[in-house]
């Protein structure tokens, strides 16, 4: 019984990486109506930048995370201002293709800059160690990741529901022409939201640096996971994305333990069934 509960806790920390990456994807889709195929690559860039700042340059952990967020935010700004902005009007298939092009570029860029090797740096001392939970050692770092994920969830809720900035963004999401008419600078909101979403993905990647192996293909793997989650939660539905992240994260944790053969199939089957029966997502209002 304890083993089952413990595995759920492991799944919970896995779910938080998925949550951080799908939160950004969801916010960007909700406002810009763009599916950013390269969103997983931004997660990957966050991880590699954090590796450089923290693992190679030896900067303090917090500073390294902050710098990688800024770096990926800048990259997001270039992607939105330089490219996506010019093709908002055309068929969404081309938006997918453009961002797919970014995946190819970033994957190889990572290989060129960092090479194939990736050494996991040590966990910062103040987050190292383990607590005994359900009679097993549960890493403090996993608890830290869960805390950050929950904090981001609460922060996003407060941001969108309680602040002036959040109201502007929600207004733009529900009717961009009306928002424009009442004086909202829609292009600036678009850029801001895209950069913000990129930084959320980068946070997920950076947080994983001391515990997860990162390889050049990780961006593509993560984006497929994020697609599954945003579909189950409902495209553009932030609350849905949070719950779906928990479902997929915990299900994967149990899946690898109890039915490793069916795990991958099952998750895609759930995605297909949701799309067929409730395309608006499981948690649509």
């Amino acid at each position, binding site marked *: 019984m304890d083993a089952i509960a413990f595995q759920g806790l492991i799944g919970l920390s896995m779910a938080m990486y998925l949550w951080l990456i799908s939160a950004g994807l969801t916010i960007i889709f909700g406002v810009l109506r763009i*599916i950013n195929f390269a969103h997983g690559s931004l997660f990957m860039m966050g991880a590699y930048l954090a590796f450089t700042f923290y693992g190679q340059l030896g900067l303090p952990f917090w500073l390294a995370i902050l710098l990688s967020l800024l770096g990926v935010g800048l990259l997001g700004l270039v992607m939105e201002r330089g*490219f996506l902005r*010019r*093709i908002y009007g*055309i068929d*969404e*298939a*081309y938006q*997918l*293709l*453009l961002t*797919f*092009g*970014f*995946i*190819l*570029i*970033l*994957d*190889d*860029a990572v*290989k*060129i800059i960092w090479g194939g090797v990736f050494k996991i740096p040590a966990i910062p001392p103040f987050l190292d160690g383990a607590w005994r939970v359900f009679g097993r050692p549960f890493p403090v770092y996993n608890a830290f990741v869960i805390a950050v994920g929950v904090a981001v969830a609460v922060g996003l809720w407060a941001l969108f529901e309680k602040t002036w900035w959040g109201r502007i963004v929600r207004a733009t999401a529900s009717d961009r022409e009306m928002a424009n008419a009442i004086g909202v600078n829609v292009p600036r909101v678009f850029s801001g939201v895209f950069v913000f979403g990129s930084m959320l993905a980068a946070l997920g990647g950076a947080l994983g640096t001391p515990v997860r192996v990162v390889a050049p293909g990780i961006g*593509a793997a993560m984006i*497929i996971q994020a*697609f*599954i989650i945003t*579909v189950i939660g409902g*495209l553009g539905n932030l609350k849905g994305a949070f719950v779906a992240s928990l479902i997929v994260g915990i299900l994967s944790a149990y899946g690898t333990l109890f039915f490793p*053969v*069916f795990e*991958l*199939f099952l998750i*895609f*089957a759930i*995605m*297909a069934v949701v*799309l*067929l029966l409730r*395309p608006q997502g499981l948690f649509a209002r």
Partner: protein
Amino acid sequence: MADRSPRRLTALVGLLVLALFLLPWVVGRYSLYLAIQILILSVFSLGFNLLFGYTGLLSFGQAGFFGIGAYACAKILLAVPNLFLGLGGGVAAAGVAAVVLGFLSVRHTRIYFSMLTLAFGMMVFSIAWKWRDFTGGDDGLVGIPRAPLEIPGLWSLSVATQERYYYVVLIVSLLAIWAMYRLVHSPLGLTLQAIRDSESRAEFAGVPVRTYRLIAFTIAGLYAGLAGALLTPLENTVTPGIAHWSTSAEPVLATLLGGVHVFGGPIVGAFLFFMLKDIIVRFTEYWLIWLGAIVVALVMGFRGGVASIFARR
């Protein structure tokens, strides 16, 4: 459009076909291998573009049907070494899967269709990857013979050499290309384009839109299955990677490179895809960064692809 092609184009195509038949006398083993790959990707991409360019549905799951074709062909050839059965069985298996999954997929359009096909394709991939007893798991199936073309008791032709197998792929591909050309210029093809341009208008004109989408989906699946089945005897192995979504991206890229709204676009694109790769990898191992840059440039500047630059509008 290139449809009202001038006589010059017809002559050009004739010359090209002749050159393709003479190719084994001119080029070496490696180039011939490349030519087979180009033909297979052409067939794969033509089927994809019936769905994308002509019907307006972007599928991310074509690798699933490609994989089903390849695995079915492999299982058959391992049991009964007859290439007719292998290719026919691969196409049939992919066709059955396309009817079933297509019936479900065409309930949606746009991004929901793309996501649904992605999910179905990855379900096929996970079966290929995990069902070790049947598919060989991540090792795949090995030692698949390049079996002879055979009508039992009557006739048998060995195609074990690469030259001979090239002719098999060439003839099958040309037939598939010709059939697709007839198809897109038939009333069926025109109906699909009408659906792409305006679903509601087609509906008002009495077109059963969903049925036509299912037909296009099934044909695209058959072509993907044929391409997969042709690949198996060439490589003598199949691995689950061919059913992964990244394989689905190949016909998408080839079609985009060559041109979406020109019949020959996917063929030109398949040629460019392998040529670019072949040229770029001579200079650098990082060819995907260049492919990515080309994709970005095409989307930003030349959404009609390379063929549209030459096609008469």
